[in-house]
Every structure is written in C-alpha cells, then in structure tokens.
C-alpha cells in the first residue's frame, strides 16, 4: 500500500515537474514566438481617417470643412443573385455588367459609390445585404456653397486638391494616412487602448471676408442677368496690403455638387487665368508715366478737336469730338486722341518702361494656381500703329488682377503690392506655421499718385465717363474701360462683342477698397460707364456699410464724436 502511494506521488511529481518545465519553456525560451502569434490574433491594424484642414475667412467663418462620409463597396464574388444588385439599384447607380465581370475574375472588392448620402447609407444598412459593406472616408464640405468657389477650389474623391486654394495649399491642408493598433478579443471585438488621436491637416485663414464676398457675388449676379453677359469678374483688394477681400467669377459652380457641372470651363478662375484687352482702364499707365517723367502737368492742354488721330496710317477716333482738353480732362472724358498725344510726347521706350514697372506681362505672384502672365510686346516688336494702340489699352493682354494692382498703386501712394489670399496657416494644435508678409515696391512717386487720385476722382464727377459709379457720401476714384474683343476668325475687332469694365478705389482720399468689375459680352449697351460702373457703385455701397467706413461728410453731419482725454475725464466724473 505504502509502495503504491510512493509510486503515485512520484507519478504526480513527474507530471507536475514536466508541466512546470513546459511552462518555463513557453514563458522564457519560446516567449517571442508565442508572443508574436498572440499579437497577430489579438492586435489589429485600424486606419485613422485623415481629416483635411479647414479653410476659414478673415473673421474665422468656416469656408471649407472636413466631415466623414461612408463609401459603399461590394464583394462581387459573394454576390449570389441579381436580386442583390436590383435592390441596390433603388438607391444608387449600379453597373450590373461590371459587377458580374469582376465576379467572374474572382475580384473581392469593388467600389459601388464613394461618399454616399447619410440617408441612403441608413437605408442600405437596414437591408443587411451580404457582400455589401461601408468604409468611412473623409469628405470635404463647403458650407457656403457657391460662395467663393473659384477661390476655394475643390478636391477629388480621394481628397486631393484639384483647384483653387485646395490645390495651391494641398501640401498644408492634406493629412497623411495613418493607422493605429487596436486590441481585439477572440471574436474580434475591440478593446480600448485609450488612443483617440486624430490625424488632421493644417488650417488655413484667408484674407477674404464672407460678407464682402457675398455683396460682390450678389451684385455681379444681378449684372450678368441684367446685361445677358457671357461672363464676369469682380476682385476687391486692400490697396495698401494686397489682401484679396473678395474675388468672384461668373459663371460659377457649387463645389459640393461637382457632378452637376456640365461645362468644365466654369471652374476656371477667370480673374487670373483669362486675358483681355483692358481698353481705357490702361490709360492710367500712360498718364502716370507722363506725370512721373514731368512731361505733362494736370493743366497741360491737348487739342482733340478733330475727334481722331492718324497713327501709322490707322485712324483712332474718340467716342465724341471733345475740343481742347486739359490732361485731367483727357482722362476724365477718356479721350483716345488725347492719350495717344500724351504717349507720343512720352515716346515708346519710356511708355514701355512704365508698363514693365507696373509689371504688366508678368505674373502678380498671387497664391492661386493657374495665373498667367499676360502679354506685352517689347518695343522692338511694336508696329507703326502700336503707339496709337498700346497707350489706350489695345495690343496688350492683361488679367483683371494686374489692372487692379496698377490702380492700387495709385490708391496707396505709389507702391506696387503683391496680391495674396492666405494670411495664416495654423497647425491642428494652433501653432502658426505661416504668416503672410506684405510685399510692396515703390514704382511712382507720392506726388504723381496724389495727382492721379485727383484726376481719377474727376472721372466719376459730372462730365466724367463714370458718373454711375458716384456714391452718396464718399468720393470715388476710378476709370471706365470699353474694349472691343478681337475676333481670331476674322482677324479684326468684333463689332458686337465687348469687354466693359470699371476699376477704382473708395473712399478716394483715404482708400479702404480697390475694386475691378469686368463684364464680358454685355448685350445692348456695352459702355463700361453704363454696364460696369453701376456694379461698382452697388458693391461699394454695401461694402462701406458692412465695413463701417464713415462718409466723407460724417464730421459735417455730426456723425463723428471724438473723445479727447479731457472729455473722457468729464464723462467719468459726471458718472461718479
């Protein structure tokens, strides 16, 4: 009995020791191998949905934000019947042949529709169809819809910037794909790891103001409708800094529904990509150059009584016979004859020098994609008629932003500024990664700029070409432009296709806003003073009220109260 008991104890001991030995072997010797096997079963890789950075206006209002949407996929090989596909057809577009084709190839994954609407997702999920699933993806949303669409641009289905700021600043906005490891149990149920990190791109703050942008777009829409115009552009800029306050083009699109775009041309940012002959708005280059060179004074007179001038065998006419005009009146009445006479006094080399000083024929360097440089021929390539065409804005091709920049130079006292759209870039944590620097370079003297401001004020006064731009309460300085469009088919200027424009700044004596309005192909009347100047006036009215800019006569009307220290003290004492 005793022997048997000892034997049993030995057997138990051997078993126990062998178990302990095996455990030791697993825990200390084969630890790594088992650990990695367990990890494979328990730890799963989970993709973190990258979120593109937001775009805010200058007051912090959201212009572009990142949301999440679900994308629908199908496992073609697991689709058992056509019934599955026909059920899905009630909610989304399905290419049955393609699914069958992929199933035959034994493909296990096929996108059915990316970024499906939330309501549709709920309905499809409720059907619990085998072989159909959803993947959450980042989705861009533009809360303001059409507003500033050409400036903001859009992204493609994979969240890559395709146009506008989305494209230009894509490297800042996009968030790199990332993943994290999550612990799961045997059934694949997730356990918490406390890792809630988000992968976000940087946020961008732009110089535009939603309020100003809305005012601009509202009145541009009205003008396009009124004149049955083919397209139009308005740019509003701070003339001292180059900050773009608003930029709009028509026709336009809603970046939230890109599928509805039928003509790809409407996504083009015409303000910086489309060239046109500026016509009379270009006359300030000639006038400024003549003043700066001391060739003319505001009182210098020019005989324009013939109503035309012959240049290189070509007759250039004025719209109306003007008689003898002073330098000021030449610009005020937009006399072609007078301007050409000024240019002839100046000479083509000096004129070209100033055209280049204003950087026509060069990109402004605005931080938007697709800007083109425009075209100005060097003097060697000028024809005999060029001195009769270039000073009045023909034979040159410019963008709207280039013309606006030239007028900003007059508004700010002689500095050529570099326009820009992005003021700051912030990291997701709020650190400033980039801050815009104002670039400006003196190109004309303060004196010349001051004289030109006075001359341009006269354009909107009685006797000028743009009385329709005159504002109640503030002086407006600006210039109209009416240019015939060149018809490449006939090789001549068209008689029924015009570009009407007005460019200027307000308040003329202390400018807060510089703005250009360009309307292409207005029907009926085509004069800049009739078509574009009223748009300038309407926008200016709204913008000055929105910005709380005082009227020029605010002091006289008793609308300005200035508290000096003594008054402040009296107020404080009276309160006590």
């Amino acid at each position, binding site marked *: 009995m005793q022997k048997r008991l000892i034997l049993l104890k030995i057997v138990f001991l051997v078993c126990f020791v062998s178990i302990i030995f095996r455990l030791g072997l697993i825990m200390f010797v084969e630890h790594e191998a088992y650990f990695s096997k367990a990890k494979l079963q328990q730890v799963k890789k989970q993709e973190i949905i990258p979120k593109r950075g937001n775009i805010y206006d200058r007051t912090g*209002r*959201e212009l572009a*934000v*990142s*949301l*999440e949407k679900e994308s629908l996929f199908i496992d073609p090989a697991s689709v058992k019947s056509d019934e599955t596909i026909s059920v899905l057809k009630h909610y989304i577009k399905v290419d049955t042949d393609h699914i069958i084709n992929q199933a035959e190839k034994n493909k296990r994954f096929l996108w059915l529709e990316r970024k499906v609407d939330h309501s549709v997702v709920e309905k499809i999920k409720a059907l619990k169809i085998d072989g159909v699933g959803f993947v959450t993806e980042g989705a861009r*949303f533009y*809360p*303001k*819809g*059409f*507003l500033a669409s050409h400036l903001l641009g859009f992204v493609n289905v994979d969240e890559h910037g395709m146009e506008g700021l989305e494209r230009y600043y894509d490297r800042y906005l996009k968030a790199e794909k990332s993943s994290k490891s999550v*612990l799961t*149990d045997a059934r694949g*149920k*997730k*356990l*918490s790891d*406390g890792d*809630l990190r988000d992968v976000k791109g940087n946020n961008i703050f732009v110089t535009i103001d*939603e*309020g100003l*942008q*809305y005012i601009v777009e*509202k009145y541009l829409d009205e003008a396009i409708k009124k004149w049955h115009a083919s397209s139009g552009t308005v740019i509003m800029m701070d003339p001292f800094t180059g900050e773009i306050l608003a930029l709009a083009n028509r026709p336009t699109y809603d970046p939230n529904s890109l599928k509805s775009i039928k003509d790809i041309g409407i996504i083009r940012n015409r303000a910086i990509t489309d060239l046109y002959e500026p016509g009379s708005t270009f006359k300030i280059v000639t006038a400024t150059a003549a003043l700066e060179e001391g060739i003319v004074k505001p009182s210098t007179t020019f005989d324009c009584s013939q109503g035309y001038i012959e240049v290189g065998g070509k007759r250039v006419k004025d719209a109306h016979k003007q008689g003898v005009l002073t330098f000021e009146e030449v610009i005020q009445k937009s006399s072609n004859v007078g301007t050409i006479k000024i240019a002839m006094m100046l000479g083509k080399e000096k004129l070209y020098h100033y055209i280049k000083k204003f950087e026509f024929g060069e990109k402004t360097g605005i931080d938007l994609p697709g800007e083109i440089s425009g075209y100005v021929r060097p003097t060697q390539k000028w024809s005999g008629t060029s001195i009769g065409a270039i000073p009045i804005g023909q034979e040159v091709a410019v963008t709207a932003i280039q013309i606006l920049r030239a007028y900003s130079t007059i508004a700010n006292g002689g500095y050529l500024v570099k326009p820009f759209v992005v003021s700051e870039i912030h990291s997701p944590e709020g650190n400033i990664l980039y801050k815009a620097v104002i670039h400006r370079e003196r190109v004309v003297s303060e004196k010349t700029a001051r004289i030109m401001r006075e001359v341009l004020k006269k354009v909107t006064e009685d006797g000028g070409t743009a009385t329709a731009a005159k504002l109640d*309460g503030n002086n407006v300085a600006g210039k109209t432009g009416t240019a015939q469009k060149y018809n490449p088919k006939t090789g001549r200027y068209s008689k029924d296709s015009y570009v009407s424009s007005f460019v200027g700044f307000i308040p003329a004596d202390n400018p807060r806003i510089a703005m250009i309005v360009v309307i292409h192909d207005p029907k009926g009347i085509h004069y800049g003073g009739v078509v574009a100047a009223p748009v300038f006036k309407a926008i200016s009215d*709204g913008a*000055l*009220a*929105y910005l*709380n*800019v*005082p*009227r020029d006569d*605010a002091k006289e*009307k008793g*609308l*300005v*109260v*200035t*508290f*000096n*220290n003594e*008054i*402040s*003290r009296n*107020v*404080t004492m009276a309160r006590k």
Partner: protein
Amino acid sequence: MNTSVKKNSYIMHIVLIILSLCTIFSILWIRSNVISLEYRLSNLEDKKKEILRERRMLLAEKSSLTSFVRLDNVEGHLLVFPDRTKVVYIYGNPENVVKVVNFNKKN
C-alpha cells in the same frame, strides 16, 4: 501538545488553501473586470467618436445656415446693412467712452 501542533498545522493548511483560492479568484475577477472595463471604454470611445462626428456635421450645418446667402434669401431678409447716415462714429479713449446710446429720444 503534539495534538495541538498537528491541529494548528491542519488549520494553517486549510487557511493557506483558502487564501490561495481567494487570491486566484481575485486575480481572475479583477482581470475579467479590467477586460469588461476595456469593452465599456471601447464602446464609450466609439460613442465619443460618433458624437464628435455629429458635432462636426452640426457645426458645418450651422455654418451653412448662418451664411450670408441664406440670411439674405430667407423670408424677411435678415441681412440688413446699416444706413451710414444714421451711424455715429466714436473715437477716443475706449475705457471712458459712453457705451450706451439711446436713439429713441430726439437729439
């Protein structure tokens, strides 16, 4: 004496076994509690993510609803800019400036 020592030793054995069992049970109980907490935490994290997602959606919707385009197009035109002939501009030391202005009374 000998019987008493044997009895004590027996009790000690029993206590040790019970303690060991209790310890093992406690460890298992704590471990299972930790696991269930991890499940609950995971669920809460998912809920938090969902709520944050919804928050982002609602903020975007709010931004869309408060856009100038909407405000100007709703019935009653909520977007009205001030009439500049009725705006008084006050300059000076902002700390001591009168901050309440009554436009109901004349002058």
